[in-house]
Each structure stands twice: as structure tokens, then as C-alpha cells.
């Protein structure tokens, strides 16, 4: 757990102006996630954990403060550079899976590679490998609506893995699944972590959060000890 820093935040603030009020979604966050960690970010709704996730995922920029990803300061990055960072460094896993409904499982997993401008043949090879890794080698040609919830989430995880990102960012990944399937997904995350992958799990579920090696608690835009 003493690897290089994957995500580093220094006094990150994110303010939203809503009418006449300033909402301080993040109000001075300083933290550090290192390579190989399995971290949960926990907090009640409205605590700022979604904003925190958007910051880590490079979907949003801070009002002030510095965010470094793999040591690179992304704070001043353009929209296009942030897209490249999302593509290369981050693997997203969503509560609602967010698979592209018209595409097969394989095509879904290939999509990040498409934006990485990888050749079609290589794309296919890497995507098949990722699908086999999550145990879905048999159902590559199926569309999302032909898959169970657990299978969908496995496709989504394969899609998150496929670009070999610096960290996997999972937002309530078991939230839409029954307990048993949810546990299987958690097991998969643990295996991936054991293989050396850095995993950040955002959840309001205390039990799930405590299952991770480290917890980052957030409340009212600040870290709790």
C-alpha cells in the first residue's frame, strides 16, 4: 500500500451557485489514494460524495485546489485532455450499468478502445480478454437486454478494465443488484484488487464501504476522521 499516488487532492473546493446561495459541495478536501488501494468513499446523500466522484473521474473541475492523477495536475486541463484522461486512466462502473443498449456486450467493452483509437483487430482481442476475465466469455454477442443484472455489471466492469486504467471508479456498483449478486460483484472487485488494481468505490452503504480496506468518510463537503 505504499505505491505511487494515483489520485491526489490538495484543498479541493467545488462551489455551485444556486440562485442567491453558494452551495459548498466540496469545501477543502485534501487526500491521497495510492496504487493498489481498495478505498471506499462514504457519506450520506448530499454530503458531496457524488461531486467527489465527479472530480476523481475527471467529469468536473474544481473551483479551486489541485487534483493530480498519476502525478499530473489536471486542474487546468481542457475538455479534450480530460476526455483523454477519462479514457486512459479511469474505468467507470455505474449503479445503473450504463451499457449502450444497441450494442452487444463485446461492442460495449470495445467502446473505450475505439476512443483510444486502437485498431479494430486489437480492440476485439483486448475486449474478449476482458470479458473472459469477468467470466462472460460465453455471452459476448448478447445485448444488454438479454443479460441479467449481475451479467450487465460484469460487462460494465470488463469495459472499465479494458483500457487498463490507473483506477476503477465504481459508483454504488451493487445498488441495483440483489444481495447475492452484489456479493459476487464485490468478490470480483476484491480479486481485481488482489491483482494489483486500484479501486475506488463510492457508496452510502456502510456495510459495503466497511468491506473495503480503507474508508474515506465525507460529510458537508469535508472529510471526517
Amino acid at each position: 500500500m505504499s505505491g505511487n499516488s494515483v489520485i491526489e487532492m490538495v484543498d479541493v473546493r467545488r462551489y455551485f451557485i444556486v440562485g442567491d446561495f453558494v452551495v459548498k459541495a466540496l469545501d477543502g478536501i485534501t487526500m491521497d489514494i495510492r496504487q493498489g488501494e481498495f478505498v471506499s468513499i462514504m457519506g450520506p446523500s448530499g454530503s458531496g460524495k457524488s461531486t467527489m466522484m465527479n472530480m476523481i473521474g475527471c467529469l468536473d473541475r474544481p473551483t479551486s485546489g489541485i487534483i493530480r492523477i498519476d502525478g499530473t495536475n489536471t486542474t487546468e486541463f481542457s475538455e479534450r485532455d480530460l476526455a483523454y484522461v477519462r479514457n486512459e486512466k479511469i474505468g467507470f462502473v455505474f449503479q445503473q450499468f450504463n451499457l449502450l443498449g444497441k450494442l452487444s456486450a463485446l461492442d460495449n467493452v470495445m467502446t473505450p478502445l475505439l476512443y483510444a483509437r486502437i485498431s479494430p483487430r486489437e480492440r476485439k482481442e483486448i475486449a474478449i480478454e476482458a470479458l473472459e476475465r469477468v467470466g462472460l466469455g460465453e455471452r459476448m454477442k448478447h445485448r444488454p437486454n438479454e443479460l441479467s443484472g449481475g451479467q450487465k455489471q460484469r460487462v460494465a466492469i470488463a469495459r472499465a478494465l479494458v483500457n487498463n486504467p490507473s483506477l476503477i471508479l465504481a459508483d454504488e456498483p451493487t445498488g441495483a443488484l440483489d444481495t447475492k449478486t452484489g456479493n459476487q460483484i464485490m468478490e470480483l472487485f476484491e480479486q481485481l484488487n488482489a491483482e494489483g488494481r486500484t479501486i475506488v468505490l463510492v457508496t452510502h452503504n456502510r456495510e459495503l464501504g466497511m468491506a473495503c480496506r480503507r474508508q474515506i468518510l465525507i460529510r458537508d463537503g469535508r472529510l471526517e476522521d
Partner: protein
Amino acid sequence: MIWENIKLAFSSMKVNKMRTLLSLLGIIIGVGAVVAILTLGNSATASISSSISAGGLEMVSIFPASGQKSSETFDEQFCETLKSSVDGIDFVLPVNTGTSKLRNGQKTTNAQISGVPSNYAALLNYEAEAGSFFSQNDNLLKRQVCVLGSDIANELFPDGNAVGQYVSIFRTQAKSYQVVGVMKSKDPLLSIMFDNFVYIPYNTFTQRFRKVSMVGSYVVRTSDDADPIKVGDSITNYLNALVGKDAYDLFSPATLAEMSKSITSTFSNFLAAIAAISLLVGGIGIMNIMLVSVSERTREIGVRKALGATNRDIMGQFITEAVALTMVGGFFGIVVGTAISVAVTNLVSWTLHISYSSYIIAVGFSMIIGLFFGWYPARKAARLDPIESLNYE
């Protein structure tokens, strides 16, 4: 990337076929109309000029108008004068024509009586079915002989054997003419309906039939190596200088063909331009459906952005979709327009002349419309905020 975008475009078209078809209707109708109008214009031009050139593009006819100057100039000798004054003339024939009643026994009919020189038939490649055209002697001696066009012969002598018989031609009084020949049927030339004519020697006409002070008309054949339009123009210039333009009318199928060609093509281009306006309306339909598509797929756009799509990637995807959509519309439009052209040309029995340039115009226009009207929705998609899009229900 482009290939993936095209595949995506077609798969999203397939998802909602009916909606795709309806949104393409404007483009299909617009392209179909442009293709049909240009193809029909082409076919019309071709068939008009072929029917005019069947009338002898190499011929020019001159009709003197009544007036003192005309009657002084346009006599029989004028044929030679004209031929030697204007280059590119093969021959000039004087023709006098009047309408009369003809009778053979109980059968009567009305016919154009034409007084022509004896070489008339030979020069115009007008062949006899029976007997022969009258001779130079018949003309010189002003004999009362006649040659019948095939329709007239059929009317007056349905059983054939007209040669050697007599017909009465009425003017102030009936005169009897011996039939020396019956001609083969011949397609109209220079608006001369050969088959409905009765030919008598030129001199017989002027002396016996009607006293004429000037020639009714001249048939001019241009030389094979001369451009009939230019010869027609030279004749016009010559005559204008000689008698003024009010003293005669000139009829040149070549000039007419040229004119009608340019009129039909101007007209069909004009109509096609109007039809192209409906393409703009079709384009608005495309923009509408693309805007709907973008808002329906907000979440997809958010996901794609999270996976690393740049704004430009998203823009490319939706522009490609709009262009693919309009190109499909263009393709169906070409099919519809061609089908309409085939049906109409069959109906009015023109020869179909497919306007391949209209295909290129149609495809090009569809593409431009896709780019133009797809640009705004695609930009809207590209600029969506990824966080809001991901949370979009």
C-alpha cells in the same frame, strides 16, 4: 472511427424504422422530384429534338409575306439568286400551295395542292409507289397531270390502280387531271405533310390553277458539310438586307430544335430548383428528428463521454448519423424519381433519358443537407455536460 460511426448510424435507423422513414419523407420527395424533373426534362428535350430533326434538320423554308417588295423579289428565279448568294446551300425549290376539293366519281376529299418543279421528288428522296413523279416535260408543257400523296390516293382510290385515272380538282371550276404517280408514305418534313398533298407541275399551277405573282414558299436544303443553323442565319441576314425582315418568314428546324432544347432545359432546371426548395423543408425534418434523437440519447452521450469520447467524437457520431440518414433518403429519392420518370415516359411514349447528373446532384445535395441540418443537433450533443447527461432520466 468513421466506419464505426456509420455502423452506429444504421443501427439507430433500424431501431425505429417507421420514424426513420417518416423523417426521411421530405428528403425522399425532394430528391425524387429533382431527379424526376431533370430526367423528364432530358427525355422531353431528346424527344422534341428527335421529332424536329425527323423533320429534316438540314432543311430551311422561306415563306414570303405579301407586299410589294416581296412580290418583286420572290419569283422563280430567286431560287438561283439565293443559292449563289448564300454559302452552304445544296438546292432551293419553289413551292406554291393552295387548298382544294378533289373528286373521283362519288368520292371527294380536301387536299393541299402543291405546284412544284419536276425534280422535287428526287431532291427530297420522295419515292413513287406506282407510276412516277411528273416529268420536266409535263412542267414545261404545263400538262394537267398530278401525283397523289399516299393518304389522298387511299381516300380517292381505295382499290388502288390510281395511275392513269383522272381526278377533278376544284378551283373556280372543276378541272380534270390525269394521275401519273402515287407516292410512298413519307414522314412529315418541314411541316409538309407529304401524304396529304397532291402535286402538280409548277407551271401548271401558276397558269391553270392560280395566277401567282410570287412564289408561295421556298424549300432550301443546306449542304451536308454546312451547319444548318449558320446557313439559316446567313439566309436571314441576306434576306434582311435585301427585303427587310417583315417581307418573309423563315423556318429552320435546326434553329427550332436548338431553341426548344434550351427552353426545355431552362424550364426543367427552373422546376428542379423549385423542387430543391422542398429539400430544405426535408432538411428541417432531419434536424427535428436529430434533435429528438440527441435528447433521447442524452444518457448514451454521457456514458460515451465518461468512457473517453471527446466533444469532437460525439459531434462526428451525430453528424455521420445525420448524413447517413439524408443519404438513405437521397437513395430512396433517386429510386422514386427514376420510377416516376419511367412511368411518365412510358405513358407519353418518350424515350427515357436518365439524367445521371441528377443522381450526382441528388446525392451531393442530400449530403450537404445532412451536414447543414445535422450540424446543430450534433453540436448540441457534443456540448452536453457529462455529469448532467449521466444523471438524465
